[in-house]
């Protein structure tokens, strides 16, 4: 059994960690947090130069052609650094949708641009409250144009293109949904930034008005493609959440060692020690579940749907748990804007909703486990 990343992949992790420690310090993250820039453009350029944006994109389309395990490794580091760039929208959602369903021409147009850091992509799925479901897709596509409103769209205000879920039928079945690619620079859209939990990753409303769109994949296949995209993104986001969990745990541990109260390190009190031990337990469970997700993703295994849901749930719970208790360990200082704890708290709780909420994925996991048991 070799249920671990290879030495090369670990080396890539070290390289990414070193790069992000230099280029993505908390100080740099704060420029975006404080609204002084929509995202870190320098960092984005650097990520492209390092080959990280195209790590899982085939060489034929301008990527490094490495694979999803390598992307998992980088995702973990992006989460650890709380990177203020549209990485998940572009790489896990838009690029993966193109890889699964894009025509050769579509791949040629967008994938090399993504790898080069010249195109930001996103997925426009949600329309207000609710979770991923064909029923919740109201935006229509007819005669090659889209009409309707998507919100929230992650990184929608800075995106060059979007993969859009649209209604093309009214049978009440999954086949009513089709996917489209929209070049947002071509007009036909009105984009508005929305205030959100985590300002280091923007959210937007996109209003499509007779907006020209190209089909992505076959008509009526939209929901089936989306399900695959969300499963892949669930695993990749889980690695970001694992990275964030570890960082929040480390911050809490370091502070517990440093801070003196009642004449001793607060980390010597069992109430604090046990809180940190429980954070370690959550983070460890999340990491192990995510490794299984990584295996399923990289081998395109039949187990991917169940593994992705398990990784998603476990990593969401761990990041929320570690981020909130990191603040608790810090006490009053943890509730200041100046300390970095809230950045992870914001990120953890925003990420918990991005691909569908925790209860949505719990529901998915039980469905998928039942399907497996029945088989």
């Amino acid at each position, binding site marked *: 059994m070799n249920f671990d990343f290879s030495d090369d992949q670990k080396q890539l992790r070290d390289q990414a960690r070193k790069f992000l420690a230099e280029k993505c310090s908390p100080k740099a993250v704060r420029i975006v947090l404080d609204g002084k820039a929509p995202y870190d453009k320098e960092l984005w350029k650097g990520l492209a130069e390092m080959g990280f944006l195209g790590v899982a994109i085939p060489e034929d389309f301008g990527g490094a052609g490495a694979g999803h395990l390598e992307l998992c490794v980088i995702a973990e580091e992006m989460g650890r650094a709380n990177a203020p760039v549209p990485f998940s929208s572009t790489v896990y959602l838009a690029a993966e949708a193109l890889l699964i369903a894009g025509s050769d021409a579509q791949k040629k147009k967008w994938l090399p641009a993504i790898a080069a850091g010249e195109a930001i992509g996103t997925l426009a799925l949600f329309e207000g409250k609710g979770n991923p479901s064909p029923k919740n897709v109201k935006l229509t596509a007819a005669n090659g144009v889209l009409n309707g409103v998507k919100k929230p769209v992650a990184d929608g205000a800075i995106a060059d293109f979007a993969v859009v879920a649209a209604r093309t039928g009214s049978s009440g079945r999954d086949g009513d949904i089709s996917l489209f690619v929209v070049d947002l620079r071509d007009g036909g859209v009105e984009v508005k930034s929305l205030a959100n939990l985590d300002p280091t990753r923007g959210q937007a409303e996109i209003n499509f008005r007779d907006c020209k769109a190209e089909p992505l994949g076959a008509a009526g296949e939209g929901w089936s493609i989306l399900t695959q995209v969300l499963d892949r993104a669930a695993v990749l986001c889980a690695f970001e959440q694992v990275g964030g969990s570890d960082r929040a745990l480390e911050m809490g541990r370091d502070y517990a060692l440093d801070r003196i109260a009642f004449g001793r*390190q607060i980390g010597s009190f069992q109430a604090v020690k046990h809180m940190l031990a429980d954070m370690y337990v959550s983070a460890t469970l999340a990491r192990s579940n995510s490794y299984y997700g990584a295996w399923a993703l990289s081998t395109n295994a039949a187990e991917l749907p169940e593994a992705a849901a398990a990784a998603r749930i476990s990593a969401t719970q761990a990041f929320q748990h570690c981020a909130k208790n990191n603040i608790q360990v810090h006490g009053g200082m943890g509730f200041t804007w100046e300390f970095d704890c809230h950045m992870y708290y914001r990120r953890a709780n925003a990420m918990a909703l991005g691909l569908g909420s925790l209860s949505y994925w719990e529901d998915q996991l039980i469905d998928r486990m039942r399907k497996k048991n029945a088989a």
Partner: protein
Amino acid sequence: MNFDDTPQEAAFRETARKWVEANAPKGFLAELSKSSLGRIRLAKHDMVEVGKAWQKKKAEGGWACLHWPKEYGGRGATPIERVIWQQEEGVYGKLTQPFQIGEGMCGPTVMAWGSEDAKRRYLPKLASGEEIWCQLFSEPSAGSDVAGLRTRAEKKGDNWVVNGQKIWTSGAHYSDYGLLIARTDPNVPKHKGLTMFFLDMKSPGVEVRPIKQANGMQEFNEVYFSDVVIPDSQRLGAIGEGWSVSLTTLMNERMSIGSRLATGVPEMFEFCSNLMLEDGLAIDDPAVRSKLASWAVKSSGLKYTSYRAISALSKGERPGPENSIGKLVSGIMLQDIATYAMDLQGAAGVLTGADEETVQGQFQQMLLSSPSMRIAGGTDEILRNIIAERVLGLPGDIRVDKDVPYNKIPTKGR
């Protein structure tokens, strides 16, 4: 990243599988496959007798304590081969319950601290199940704080005379030998006045009494010592060095990586898939699904955490500290699952007999037994301390009795 054996591992697995296939007591397969929690009971046979027969057969085939050196009854196998063996032995491994304390704790301690003569005399018979060992550490006043134990051993010529009481001793009533830690000097701080021995459990003055537990069962014992004589040749390690010796024992307790802990999740999934509530199947209820999903990912998280450790062993590396979370997670989960299953049963949940509504009372049994999972082998609190101190590097507890002579430590709080 893959789950495949290396060619050597695959060959070893094949050998093990063939041997199990040819030799396992298949008549017990159904019974062993069913029971998942607590002591194994066989309807018509004595568990210890059946276990001894299986262990003897394994020893003859070279499959007992296989990670031990050959001269002491093992096979000289690597850690990963031991894990593969456990996987292939499967449910028949449950038959080895009477020998687990000996194999996992007493044997390694004798191996590390015993004389060559003692090792050759005792280890092969321990490995083959011919002689069963128990561990005599915990006392009524010394559980988590085991170094605070009171049982006294006093030197009389070439012998030691032991008086005191031990508790929570699994298998004391069928054990041939016991690993005993006792206080040999009450005038020094508690950790410094301890010494380790082993003794014949049939020695005059040893009295074993079963404990009636909170769940109504009797699985453990109290052991009383009244002027029990132990020859000095049965001392392990130097006088006063007992605490260091005990750490060998306890470290081995935590190294058992291949073993799967019961979580209650498969039972709960099955139960919810069949339970009809007023509005339909329990598993279709959103509240039930949410809880089930949370437990399922804990259970899978533990499974893949152990796979990570197995992978480290396969590469010849030492596994990381991740495995320390196993019992902490599963003990709490078992108790929570039992409570929730009964909640779903509603009024009938109070019944503990073979009622159909309660699936023969399996969750009621789980509820009543689960507190022990959170205490035995390190309480939840001790396990969290271990994670906090050894994994996260947080300071140890302030120990007010650390430098105080043992006989000056207060014994009552009020």
